[in-house]
C-alpha cells in the first residue's frame, strides 16, 4: 500500500471511529431518510401511482430522499474539524490531498451505509420493481460516489465560512442538480430494463463524477490551506 493511500485511510479511519462513537452524522442521515421515507410511503404508498408513471416517479422520490438526507449529514466532515479546533493540527500534520482523500472515503462510507439501508426499504415500502437489480446497484454506487465527491468539496469550502447555516445546501444544489437528473434517468432505465438508456446515463454519471474528482483534487489544497 502506498504511503499516500495509508495516510488517507488513516484520516478516514479516524473520522469513522469518531463518528461511530458519537453517531452525529449517521443519526442525521438516518433520521432524515427514514422520516422522509415514512412520509412518502404513507402519503403515496405503492398503489397510488399509475403503472406507466411508476418507474420515473419512484426514481425521482428515491433520489430526492437520498440527496436531501446527504445534505443533512455530509457537511459534518469538515465543519466538525473547524468547530472542535482540530483542523490546525491536521493542516500541519497531513498534506492537503491526503486530507481530501480521507474525507472523501469517510463520506463515501456514510453515503453507502445510508443507501444500503434506504434503497431496499424504499423498494419494499413503495413496491418499486427493478428489472435489472445489479445495474441498479451500479447506478447507486456511481451516483453515491458523485454525491460524495461534490459534498466533500462543498463541505470544505463552507467550513471556512463564519455563517455556515444553509450555505451547504445553497452551494451544493447547483452542483448536484445535473447529477440528480442523470441518476434519476439511470434509475428509471434500470427499473424499466432499458439497457441503451442505462448505458447512456452511466457514461454521463461517470464523466461527471470523474470531472468533479479532478476539479476537487486541484481545488482542495487552495481551500484547505488559505
Amino acid at each position: 500500500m502506498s504511503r499516500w493511500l495509508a495516510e488517507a485511510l488513516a484520516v478516514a479511519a479516524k473520522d469513522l471511529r469518531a463518528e461511530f462513537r458519537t453517531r452525529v452524522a449517521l443519526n442525521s442521515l438516518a433520521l432524515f431518510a427514514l422520516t422522509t421515507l415514512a412520509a412518502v410511503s404513507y402519503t403515496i404508498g405503492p398503489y397510488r401511482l399509475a403503472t406507466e408513471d411508476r418507474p420515473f416517479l419512484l426514481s425521482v422520490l428515491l433520489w430526492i430522499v437520498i440527496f436531501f438526507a446527504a445534505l443533512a449529514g455530509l457537511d459534518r466532515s469538515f465543519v466538525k474539524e473547524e468547530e472542535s479546533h482540530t483542523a490546525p493540527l491536521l493542516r500541519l500534520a497531513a498534506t492537503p490531498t491526503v486530507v481530501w482523500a480521507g474525507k472523501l472515503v469517510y463520506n463515501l462510507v456514510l453515503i453507502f451505509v445510508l443507501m444500503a439501508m434506504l434503497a431496499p426499504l424504499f423498494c419494499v415500502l413503495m413496491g418499486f420493481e427493478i428489472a435489472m437489480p445489479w445495474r441498479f446497484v451500479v447506478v447507486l454506487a456511481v451516483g453515491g460516489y458523485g454525491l460524495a465527491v461534490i459534498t466533500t468539496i462543498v463541505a470544505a469550502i463552507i467550513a471556512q465560512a463564519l455563517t455556515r447555516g444553509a450555505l451547504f445546501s445553497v452551494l451544493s444544489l447547483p452542483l448536484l442538480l445535473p447529477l440528480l437528473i442523470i441518476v434519476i434517468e439511470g434509475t428509471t432505465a434500470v427499473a424499466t430494463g432499458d439497457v441503451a438508456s442505462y448505458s447512456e446515463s452511466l457514461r454521463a454519471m461517470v464523466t461527471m463524477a470523474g470531472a468533479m474528482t479532478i476539479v476537487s483534487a486541484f481545488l482542495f489544497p487552495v481551500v484547505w490551506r488559505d
Partner: protein
Amino acid sequence: MSGGISISFSDVAKRYDLRVVFRAVSGEARPGEALVITGPNGSGKSTLLAILCGLLRPTKGAVRFLKDDGDEIPRNEWGRHLGVVAPSMAVYEELTALENLRFYARVRGLALTDAEHRVLLERVGLDPDRSTTVRGFSTGMAQRLKIAQALLHSPSVLFFDEASSNLDPSGQDWLEAQVQSLIDDGRTVVLATNDRREMTWGSQNVSLAG
C-alpha cells in the same frame, strides 16, 4: 540532534479588514535557543505564532525557515519540521490518548510502534492504558497530550503558546525541564506567553505593543 532550523521574520504585519493586529514585527529564532514573544492580551501573540507556523499568511512581511546550510524550506513543508502546542489547537476528543498519537503518527508517515507511543505518553505524565476518550480528560491532561503530539515526530522547531497555563506546579516544572532539554538538544523553541516564569526560559525576546 543534527540539522537545526532557524526562523527569520521581518516586518511582519497582520490586519483583519480595518483592524490592525500588529505591524512591522521582526525577529529570529535560532537552533539551541528559545525566542519569547510577549505582549498584553489582544496584542497578537497567538496570531504571530500562527503566522510563524504557516497557518496564517501575514498581510505584509516575510517568514523564512532556514536550514543550517542556508537553504530555505518551502512553506508547504514547514509542518513536517515543527510541533505546536496552543490553546486554539485541539486533539480529537472522541479518541483515546493512544489513538490520537497513532493517528498523528500515521498521517505524518511515521512507522512508530505502540510501545513507542506508550513511552511518549508516560514521558508526558499520562497513563497509556487509560481507555477513556480525551473528552473525559481534565484540561491539564489534555494539555499534556497536546505536548506529546507536538513531540511525536521529534521536530526541529517547537512552538508553545501559553503551554504551562493548564498544568499543575509539578507539570510546570516538568515542562520547564522539557523545554530546557529541547534547547540543549539544539532545537529551535518559540514561546508566546505572559507568564513571568516562562519568560525566563528564552534568550531572545519579541515584544508586541498591543
